[in-house]
């Protein structure tokens, strides 16, 4: 266990050192998030009158709705991009081979490379939620986070990150196999942004599209997290979303790991593990 934590720390510290060596880029990513929040704050003010709060989120403003949706969509983006992007970057820089010849399992090398991204995403989510709340407060409005929903939120967050990681590992498997043009990334990213209820309520779509959106983990994640954070829902009230996320996690994580192991095996047979 100590050895595992030591290795995860090594990945985190390596990426921290690398990231802060590009100081401007490091700071600009947070500034970018703040600009996005500001843009949506004013769009939300503009459309506020035509926004009907969903029945399960009484009194919630459109800005609060989008803010939570955008913040937690970051996790999906992080899982989908970070696994494949990290593998590709290590292949291009030639460091993948150097790591794979050490007595560390290939799966840990690749999964460990994403520790930094997950922690930074968590920090970025906090920046988005914090800056949105402050911005609303500055204009005399409120986002209205409810402390009573925190236990349900934390449980939802764990299951969301786990389920999304399954998708990310699947995406990484495709990157090892195909090198470029990972279909999981394209499909899930596009479908989640369009159908997952990031910027609008899923209920405004036709019924058949709502059914499709229920096949995406992000739909359940955002619905549950919004209810927990914005309506103070307890664990029992978000049980359906928790169950759906648990099911996604139970299918996607083992499925992703199996696909990943098969892709690694295939790459070793082909001799293409460090090719790009």
């Amino acid at each position, binding site marked *: 266990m100590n*050895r595992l934590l*030591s*290795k995860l*720390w*090594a990945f985190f*510290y*390596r990426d921290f*050192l*690398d990231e802060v*060596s*590009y100081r401007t880029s490091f700071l600009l990513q947070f500034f970018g998030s703040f600009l996005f929040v500001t843009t949506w704050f004013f769009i939300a003010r503009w459309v506020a009158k035509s926004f009907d709060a969903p029945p399960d989120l009484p009194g919630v403003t459109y800005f609060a709705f989008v803010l939570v949706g955008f913040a937690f969509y970051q996790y999906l983006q992080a899982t989908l991009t970070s696994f494949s992007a990290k593998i590709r970057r290590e292949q291009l*820089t*030639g*460091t993948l*081979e*150097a*790591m*794979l*010849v*050490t*007595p*560390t*399992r290939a799966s840990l*090398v690749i999964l460990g490379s994403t520790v930094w991204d997950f922690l930074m995403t968590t920090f970025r989510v906090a920046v988005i939620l914090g800056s949105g709340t402050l911005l609303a407060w500055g204009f005399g409005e409120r986002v209205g986070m409810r402390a009573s929903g925190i236990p349900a939120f934390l449980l939802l967050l764990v299951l969301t990150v786990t389920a999304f990681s399954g998708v990310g590992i699947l995406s990484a498997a495709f990157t090892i196999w195909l090198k470029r043009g990972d279909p999981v990334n394209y499909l899930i990213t596009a479908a989640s942004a369009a159908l997952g209820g990031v910027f609008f309520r899923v209920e405004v779509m036709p019924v058949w599209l709502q059914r499709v959106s229920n096949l995406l983990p992000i739909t359940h994640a955002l619905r549950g997290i919004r209810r927990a954070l914005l309506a103070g829902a307890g664990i029992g009230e978000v049980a359906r979303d928790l169950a759906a996320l648990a099911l996604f996690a139970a299918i996607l994580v083992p499925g992703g790991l199996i696909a990943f192991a098969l892709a690694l*095996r295939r790459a*070793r*047979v*082909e*001799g293409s*593990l*460090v090719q790009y």
Partner: protein
Amino acid sequence: MADAIEVEHLTKVYVKKRSLSQIIRRPFGASERVTALAGIDLQVREGEIFGLLGPNGAGKTTLLKILTGLVVPTQGGARVAGHDVLHAGVAARGSIGFVTSEERSFYWRLSGRENLHFFGRLSNVPGRRLRQRCQELMDQVEVSAFADRPFMDYSSGMKQRLAVARALLHDPRVLVMDEPTRSLDPSAARHLRTLVRDVLNRRQGKTVLLATHNLDEAESLCNRIAIMSRARVRRLGTVAEIRALESPKERYRVEVAPAFTPHGQAYRVLETVPGPGGAALTLEFDRGGEGLTRFLSDALGASCRIIACERLQLPLQEVFDRAVAMEDEPARPGSLR
């Protein structure tokens, strides 16, 4: 003495991916197969420096990649320090340190020390020992003065020395080096060779498997070599043994004064070059025979003085060229191992 690396009947066949045009022209056509290794048998003894020579595409890199777990063999197997590279890959990699000539295999914006700390953790060096181990290795490869400078500021020689330090982090029994002096100037290359021979091999007892194109390097460093070509080992043994195999006769150049005309049965005079007051003769006789003794006896018997006596060796380049040009037959077994 036990073998540090054992390779048995190792075969690797790559199946080449078909291009789009090939798929369109022949949708059900078979993929091209390329044999990179064809039933290789090889043993590297504990504590020796073993050279792997061969032209590009001979199969050297595939062999190294199989030993380091990057490639799975099609048939056969390999063991490093007794660990099967296929079924006990982590343990095998724990016994092996890999030095690549690829400069890009480090994080350029991190310092040399930070790079070593990162790879040290991946190499299972305990946290409390890591700092000290990195410092020891940087001292050993003489990059301590630049330890906290970004890797991108290092010279090629320093980068290569840091690659050696990285491979030694977990104190492996076996060091696998893939053309370590390829991009180094002569002075840096000499420095690295001295480190490998005097410190790592002689002092620390590491077994070294060295893949190189540099024949002089192989001759000066290696206890034994294998010459590979077209997926097979063509020659295996000490440089002297391989020379003997390629050239069963020995040649000497002897200067005598005054000149004389020898007529011994045990040797043959290939060439006589007259010189001031004497002659330089090129002799050939059976390896291990009495040819030289008989000639010297004849010369002294004819009241000649021996001015110089020099052994003429078949250049390693010629040995290499002959081995590489061999037709597909297995390496001569047993006698040279």
